[in-house]
């Protein structure tokens, strides 16, 4: 069965530090990849997505992610984090096959201190 792994469960950074959150998936065929963010007390929002084309995807609020097919990875990056980036970040994958359901990783909690 397809799965999504986020190895960083809890990340603590100071403002202006660089961020990279790992995401790996298990499916070998065509995939659509997403990063969602959940700010405290708010609902899930889309940060960015990859369907096809340029594997370096730019999203909102200065986030970007790179799809590396050979590594089955879609890591999220931001060169300089802000306190307002404190949130939970979820990687998600839609694979092909018999269904198009969206499968999420377990999430990474990011805390940014001023």
């Amino acid at each position, binding site marked *: 069965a397809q799965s999504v792994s986020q190895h960083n469960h809890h990340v603590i950074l100071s403002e202006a530090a660089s961020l990279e959150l790992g995401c790996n998936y298990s499916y070998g065929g065509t995939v659509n990849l*997403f990063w969602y963010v959940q700010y405290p007390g708010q*609902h899930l*929002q889309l940060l960015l*997505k990859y369907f096809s084309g340029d594997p370096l995807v730019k999203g909102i609020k200065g986030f970007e992610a790179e799809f590396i097919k050979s590594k089955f990875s879609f890591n999220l990056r931001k060169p300089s984090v802000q306190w307002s980036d404190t949130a939970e970040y*979820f990687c998600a994958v839609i694979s092909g096959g018999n269904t*198009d359901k*969206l499968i*999420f990783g377990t999430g990474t909690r990011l805390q940014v201190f001023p």
Partner: protein
Amino acid sequence: GAGVSQSPSNKVTEKGKDVELRCDPISGHTALYWYRQSLGQGLEFLIYFQGNSAPDKSGLPSDRFSAERTGGSVSTLTIQRTQQEDSAVYLCASSLYNRGTIYFGEGSWLTVV
């Protein structure tokens, strides 16, 4: 509507009672998902509806859980004989087409006491 609407936003129920959670997707969206988010856990896939196709029920944790989608729009998630471990936020999401960008509602927070 402008977004995915879920009701109730909060529900406290006694163990053993049945509950119904409602989801009104974005108008015109053909795909609808239900997820469960427990405290400190990720998002657990429950069920997926796409158009007139048979739903993917592979994530439903037990036969106490069921869901319907009437007329290709509103969906109801029913939990029978609720247990304390059912306490969670139940999230509904929809997308315009299969494999499209998915938009989430604010969730229904269920507490079983």
